[in-house]
């Protein structure tokens, strides 16, 4: 079963129940360097980085798909893609960006920084954590193999029934899509349970919920959304699988089925999903803005509770995706009002961010620019969102580019700008070197210009009536003058390529920071004058995270250790009393002895990769299901019988006596 990783005083003996036998047929992987240290790792930091690298790779894949779409639509009667390929392209663009980029990117930051921000040494279940990552990777690869095996899914990421049935989509694309999302769903579910338990049980002494860093709070809220949203899409995907692979008729109208069943199930998942995508980024900017404003977050409790409120109300608005489906006036009115109501907590957050900056000593670093970019761009997306909440107006806009404009402003302008803020802000913490601010400026401005050029005109195109998901538009119906569709489509396509170039600059920046002749020098310990606990350790953090378990007495604990309030009465006058280096020296001088970390394990990756075998079995051959299930069963027993820490004989050369890992001094 799982491990409890927080060392407790008086309980420092290794948590091994049965010391003698190694249960695996093989020696347990205990390497701390080389490829094996990544493949079998259960270190939350390495897993976080692997999540991040994989997600950024799929960001490029999804971006490429987007550029193909925009190239096709740049002029009338585009010929780059066939209608069929175009359908696959927009389906996989959305699927990739939502499930394979933004969600795992939030998992990357969550994995890496939640334990660091709460002063823990790892997550509650390190092996399950590794399993989550490998599941995500296995599912992602599985979905994308469909490109080579007869074509990808082509029904849109919402995969509306009955269009998703075999007669309308005879290739295996949708089967790959559904089964692959089941696998990534397992990743999300196990990851969510893991992080919730971590936050609830493993906060450092003194860190009450209201002293918890805001990023951790938002990740915490998101994990609850995942725990309850994922099973709903699981049901929907199972029904779809039975429909497509086993001849059930859940969505066949001719058999008397109700195709709205799919829409309800999908959007009960799908609407919380949009908050799953954007709340982590809200958390990131709520960390970044105070640091670069040199002020505490304005109205911290309000930001926390409005995040939680978004999490709750997010469950009651799903049918606003279905205003055009004939729900009836009462449902439409209720969901319309609920949708308007959710703008309130979101607005509260925006006000709080602005008030955080108000009167602060602003430093316009790249991270700060991305955070401000989020506030501006997300607000634009939020305003068009309110127009969707008005049902009559939404009915007019449904399935037009106006909707596309809206959700790209909130997802690119919200979620993705936040992710970039996080990358620039935390890069020195994760990798010990700072990304170039100069290239970062180009990166930021090109992305902002590209974003507005690509998605801004879509408002106009959409209100003019150009439908989504159409693979061509024709000159004859493009209209005249300012509202000419051709002009705005061209602008939008140019913008998409500017945006793509801006994103590539980030990758160049990352490469340049670590390789080549302009390689950046090691970053200072506390380059931003940061506020939260993850900065109370080396960069990159040590394998044990902290030399000793921090004891917390303030929100923004790290700031309060550096600065002392010399003001009197209501006036605050913070004077620096210590540097990060001095604080770290204190920690190192008082390091805990006998920290033991759980050992790496090969069961998580084995179990994760048994899942796509079963999934291929559903599509091709029932025997493969049995083979996959056999491997899964083996892996589960191996896992259950494996002690938390490897016995000494597994080390090469065997260490005497201890099961403690040799701790590398610089990560």
């Amino acid at each position: 079963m799982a491990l409890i990783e927080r060392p407790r005083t008086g309980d420092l003996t290794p948590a091994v129940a049965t010391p003698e036998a190694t249960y695996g047929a093989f020696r347990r992987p205990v390497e701390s360097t080389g490829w094996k240290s990544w493949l079998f790792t259960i270190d939350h930091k390495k897993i976080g980085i692997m999540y991040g690298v994989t997600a950024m790779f799929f960001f490029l894949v999804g971006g490429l798909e987007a550029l193909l779409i925009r190239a096709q639509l740049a002029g009338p009667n585009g010929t780059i893609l066939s209608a069929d390929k175009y359908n696959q392209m927009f389906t996989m663009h959305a699927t990739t960006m939502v499930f394979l980029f933004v969600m795992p990117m939030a998992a990357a930051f969550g994995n890496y920084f939640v334990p660091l921000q709460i002063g823990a040494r790892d997550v509650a279940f390190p092996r399950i954590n590794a399993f989550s990552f490998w599941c995500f990777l296995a599912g992602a690869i599985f979905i994308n193999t469909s490109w080579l095996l007869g074509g990808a899914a082509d029904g849109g990421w919402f995969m509306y029934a009955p269009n998703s049935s075999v007669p309308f989509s005879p290739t295996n694309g949708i089967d790959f899509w559904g089964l692959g999302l089941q696998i990534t769903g397992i990743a999300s579910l196990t990851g969510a349970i893991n992080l919730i338990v971590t936050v609830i049980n493993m906060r450092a002494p003194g860190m009450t919920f209201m002293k918890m860093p805001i990023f951790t709070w938002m990740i915490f809220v998101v994990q609850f959304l995942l725990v309850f949203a994922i099973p709903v899409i699981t049901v929907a995907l199972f029904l779809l699988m039975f429909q497509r692979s086993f001849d059930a008729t859940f969505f066949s109208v001719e058999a008397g089925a109700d195709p709205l069943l799919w829409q309800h199930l999908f959007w009960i998942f799908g609407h919380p999903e949009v908050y799953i995508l954007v709340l982590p980024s809200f958390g990131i900017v709520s960390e970044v803005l105070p640091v670069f404003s040199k002020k505490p977050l304005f109205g911290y409790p309000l930001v926390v509770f409005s995040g939680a409120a978004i999490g709750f109300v997010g469950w009651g608005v799903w049918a606003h995706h279905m205003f055009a489906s004939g729900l009836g006036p009462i449902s439409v009115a209720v969901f319309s009002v609920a949708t308007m109501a959710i703008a309130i907590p979101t607005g509260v957050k925006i006000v709080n961010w602005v008030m955080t900056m108000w009167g602060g000593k602003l430093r316009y670093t790249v991270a700060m620019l991305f955070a401000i970019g989020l506030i501006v761009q997300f607000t634009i997306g939020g305003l068009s969102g309110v127009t969707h909440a008005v049902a009559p107006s939404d009915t007019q806009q449904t399935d037009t580019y106006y909707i596309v404009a809206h959700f790209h402003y909130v997802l690119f302008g919200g979620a993705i700008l936040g992710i970039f803020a996080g990358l620039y802000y935390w890069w020195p913490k994760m990798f010990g070197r700072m990304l170039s601010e100069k290239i970062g400026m180009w990166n930021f401005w090109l992305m902002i210009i590209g974003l507005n050029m690509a998605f801004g005109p879509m408002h106009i195109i959409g209100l003019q009536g150009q439908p989504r998901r159409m693979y061509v538009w024709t000159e004859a119906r493009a209209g005249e003058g300012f509202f000419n569709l051709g002009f705005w489509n061209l602008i939008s396509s140019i913008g998409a390529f500017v945006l793509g170039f801006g994103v590539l600059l980030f990758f160049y920046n990352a490469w340049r920071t670590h390789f080549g002749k302009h390689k950046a020098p090691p970053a200072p310990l506390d380059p931003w004058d940061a506020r939260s606990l993850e900065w109370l350790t080396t960069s990159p953090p040590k394998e044990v995270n902290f030399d000793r378990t921090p004891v917390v007495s303030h929100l923004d604990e790290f700031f309060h250790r550096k600065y002392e309030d010399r003001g009197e009465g209501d006036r605050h006058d913070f004077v620096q009393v210590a540097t990060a280096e001095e604080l770290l020296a204190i920690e190192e001088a008082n390091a805990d002895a006998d920290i033991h970390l759980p050992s790496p394990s090969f069961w998580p990756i084995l179990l994760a990769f048994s899942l796509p075998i079963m999934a291929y079995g559903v599509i091709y051959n029932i025997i493969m299901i049995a083979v996959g299930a056999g491997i899964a069963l083996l892996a589960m027993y191996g896992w259950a019988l494996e002690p938390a820490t490897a016995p000494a004989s597994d080390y090469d050369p065997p260490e005497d006596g201890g099961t403690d890992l040799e701790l590398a001094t610089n990560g």
Partner: protein
Amino acid sequence: MADTAVHTAAGHDDHHDDHHGGHYTSTGLSNNKLAMWLFLGSECLLFGGLISTYMLYRGRHTSNLGPDQVWDIPFTSASSFVLLMSSLTMVLAVTAAKRHDDRTTNVWLSITAILGSLFVAGQVYEFTTFYREGLGFTTSLFSSSFYTLTGFHGVHVTVGVILLLSVVGMIIRNRIPGDKAEVVELVGLYWHFVDIVWILIFTLVYLIPA
């Protein structure tokens, strides 16, 4: 269990103890148990979705093979009774485990597994009978959603039986890492959940006339 007790004892001071670092920042509930509760919470939504699908489609059948025609209420009541009794034996197993009485724990766990298997066997028999009467998986929307819902529950019971037997084996060979009583309790939580879901399914699917 010992350290759990210590944590809960101190856990109530949260609001009174405002000294620096004096707050308790852990529920005292073990990580495993918390994770199991979260998983079961998630399962509620899974069965919620399946039950909703069934309720939507229960009346959609063309032939005379509707719910009211095929149910054999006395038989299903008997197998439901068997499943509910397995919750009792599960409780007895957990109590024995907390007393560190391995032998008794194993006896009750095994009986629970047998009762669970009986229930699954009953379900297999029931499905076979329905199939012989002409109610296949794809016969109607009613049959598809019925088999999907009860099938998912049956798989859950089967997984539970496998868990029970695995725990028995691991106790016999003394290979449970960590707290034995807690492992039994975790399986117990899962088992009771599966039972509670069956109470819902039995009421909504079988007892309420379509």
